[in-house]
């Protein structure tokens, strides 16, 4: 099978799997139960801000305002999302709609980003 055909085949699976709705709302309910171990760590928000600038700002904007297809992370649904839900989003991404998975970052760094996202 040619690369192109495999690409089209995978794209078809992708479209079928992507579904609709905001990403934070598509996280399974059980994800929300996970507690953030760095919730009250004083270094977590500045470390998370550094990681955000490095990993996320190119798509979501320097001030989390959103750009093109990457939504604003200041919008109420994201601000109200449980830490565990945001952690689930970072682990899995939304590969068929342009949000990469950040599972390669150690868990501690993902929690630092979550702490930063929820601080305002």
């Amino acid at each position: 099978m040619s690369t192109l055909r495999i690409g089209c085949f995978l794209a078809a699976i992708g479209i079928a799997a992507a579904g609709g709705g905001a990403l934070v709302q598509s996280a399974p309910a059980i994800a929300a139960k996970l507690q953030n171990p760095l919730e009250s760590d004083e270094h977590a928000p500045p470390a998370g801000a550094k990681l955000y600038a490095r990993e996320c700002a190119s798509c979501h904007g320097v001030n989390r305002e959103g750009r093109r297809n990457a939504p604003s992370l200041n919008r109420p649904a994201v601000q109200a999302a449980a830490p565990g839900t945001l952690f689930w989003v970072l682990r899995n991404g939304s590969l068929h709609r342009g949000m990469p998975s950040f599972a390669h970052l150690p868990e501690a760094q993902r929690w630092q980003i979550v702490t930063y996202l929820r601080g305002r």
Partner: protein
Amino acid sequence: MTTARLKYLLAAAAALVLQPLCWAGEGPFFITYTHQMEEPGNLEFAFKTVMGKPDGGNRFFGTVAEFEYGVTGWWTSELYLDGQATRREGALFTGYRWENRFRLLSHEHWINPVLYLEFENINGADKSLLEIVNHDGQEALGSPNAEARFEKKREMEAKLILGSYVKGWTIAENFIAEKNVRHAPFEFGYAVGVSRPLAMAARPDRCNFCAENVQVGVELYGGLGTHEQFGVGGTSHYIAPTVAWTLASGTTLRISPGFGTTGTSAGYLLRFGVSYEAAQFGRAARNLFRGGRP
């Protein structure tokens, strides 16, 4: 070259120069692939060199220039340009490879499969040693460039990449099958790697010398014969500790000494590399092409 093509090439080059470099903090492996894909729209460019000296042969430097682009979140495409320099024999361009990686599952699991498909058009003098298959060994590395360059190698290669992240550790296994498009049997090989960063949490400040920026690991790779003669008899195998250090600017430096573990393997290989990543390169190139700002 038509004006339109030239314009497109210039736009792409300008986009590359004008785009801010971002964090190329990929793992420390040279040979083993993990299931980490390039971020959609980002372009990573890297140079990787391997230095070695086969028994009775001349010291060589095999280098690849690598351009890795995130087409989508689940599809990464990569172009390699290969060259080598051998002492007393000169330097030459040895060919190109084009690979595509497709992530097969949309969510993160314990084990994450990725399908890798590559076409390579290289000659027999290629010494980049990006994978070891079949009975590849130091004998082939010792054959003179003047002869080896005339051997054409048009090959298709497939890999099944399995990757896992467990408590800060990255574990990856690659199974390789390669076939010359015209003749020769299917050739097999493998690569496995384990790595982890020196610190799990990030420091709040921008830093060069911090443990979170350093990743250490070890790779094992080698040949597994052909479908007619499958097994490890007479094949090459290497064990290679590896270190990657990402600077605050985002540039990653890697180094890995490799040690041959069988008589067929080259005794010692030293690999080093540098990589940079341009964020949202695709968008910048498109905008520039349409006459906007990068």
